[in-house]
């Protein structure tokens, strides 16, 4: 530590406390897990329904994020226009917004009384209280993760390769698919995994916007919130499951020695 010119000794205690602030609650959770009944707690009908719903909706919202987020990141990364920074600011909003506020905003838009939702209902498209609402809520909160990560990777990548490919006669679509996207593949993977993880953990917007019904809208975090009151052991077992998923995600994305995003 002392070999570094900008790391004074007094910086170490707060750094350790900061790390402990993040690590200790995880220890606390693991200590509370009822290992003897863990298997039966996470395999009840309600738990399995919630896990299955979470996996399905998080996968669907990740696909949606890829379909919409890759083009958005590309446009933002390649544009120098002034409007691009305004567009980027909007993309960043869900990152700093409390999810419950996101839920209320979605409700005001896609809810049965929402300014778009009431027209959709006339057309026979109902979103409120359906699994689609869960996917929408998840996409709303996780899309920024993909866009920000991918845009960063696109800006950092050497544009020379794309220029060369274009001079050699490749059409933009071909340059994108064969040169640019392969160049930013690590960033794309990191963004995808991060948005999947964020979707899996989504709670506030879901419970506000989609409701809570087993097998339809009650995702794993919502189930944990409900069980917390009536069966704390089940809530802790399911929480551990989500922590395990989070750790697996970090292991997948995080490469020691360089920032993944």
């Amino acid at each position, binding site marked *: 530590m002392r070999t570094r010119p900008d790391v004074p000794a007094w910086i170490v205690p707060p750094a350790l406390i900061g790390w402990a602030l993040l690590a200790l609650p995880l220890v606390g959770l693991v200590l509370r897990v009822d290992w003897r009944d863990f298997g039966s707690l996470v395999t009840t009908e309600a738990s399995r329904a919630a896990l299955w719903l979470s996996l399905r909706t998080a996968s669907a919202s990740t696909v949606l994020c890829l379909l919409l987020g890759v083009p958005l990141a590309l446009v933002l990364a390649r544009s120098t226009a002034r409007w691009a920074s305004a567009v980027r600011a909007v993309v960043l909003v869900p990152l700093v917004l409390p999810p419950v506020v996101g839920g209320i905003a979605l*409700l005001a838009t896609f809810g*049965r*009384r929402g300014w778009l939702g009431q027209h959709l209902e006339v057309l026979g498209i109902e979103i409120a*209280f359906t699994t689609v609402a869960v996917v929408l809520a998840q996409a709303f909160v996780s899309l920024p993760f993909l866009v920000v990560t991918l845009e960063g990777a696109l800006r950092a990548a050497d544009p020379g390769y794309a220029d060369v490919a274009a001079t050699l006669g490749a059409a933009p679509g071909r340059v994108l698919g064969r040169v640019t996207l392969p160049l930013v593949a690590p960033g794309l993977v990191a963004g995808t995994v991060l948005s999947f993880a964020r979707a899996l953990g989504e709670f506030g917007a879901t*419970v506000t916007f989609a*409701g*809570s019904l087993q097998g339809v809208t009650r995702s794993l975090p919502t189930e944990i919130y409900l069980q917390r*009151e009536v069966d704390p052991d089940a809530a802790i077992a399911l929480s551990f499951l989500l922590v395990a998923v989070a750790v697996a995600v970090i292991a997948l994305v995080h490469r020691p020695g360089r920032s993944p995003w």
Partner: protein
Amino acid sequence: MRAHAAAILASVLALSGCGAGPASTERTLTVLAAASLATAFTELADEFEDEHAGVDVRLSFGGSSSLAAQIAEGAPADVFAAADERTMSLVADVGVARAEAVVFATNTVQVAARRDGPVKSLQDLVGPGVKVVLCAPQVPCGAAAREALDTAGIEVEPVSEEQSVADVLGKVASGEADAGVVYRTDVLAAGDRVTGLELPGPARVVTRCPVVALDGPADEALAAEFVAFVSGREARATLDAAGFGTP
């Protein structure tokens, strides 16, 4: 540098309200109460404060089961008022109650229908496309709602099972759902945002609301006084106005 760090730390602690402030002569009583009691207890707390100079009643409302779970986890609370006796027994089991719980009011379930919505009568609850929300069966209002609907012979398929009665009422009042089953007092409190539909006599499931003094930070006598106050004659008018029944 050290001085700077200490100053920053001190201001962070001050902002977060950590550390000991100047000693206050005010006595604080922390009351956790079921969401359905919010209106009545806000008034009752004011009356109690008027009668007891220097007492500050701090209220926290939430789903009964939520509050019971908080108390079981050691949340500092002096009084707990629940929406039903089952929830109260959870707190009694933890051993933080200072006395036996007293039932101070009764409540009953009612159907809350969205204004200008498709639900005009109980039969409409099972109409095509009608969206009904209930509390989850695990929480008091959900248990009571199911018992009531079963007794009335109405087979409702809810589109959502919410965490608390406040969530159900919110979904109906905002027009997101067409109807929900809540407490009679919630319908009254919601005013003209929802229309209340009375269930047939035998289906008017009566829940009994108990209140108890807890082993909290305030002194035992003050907590006991508050319990006596809400279960006494003085509080009756306020509880009646809110729609609660006499136990």
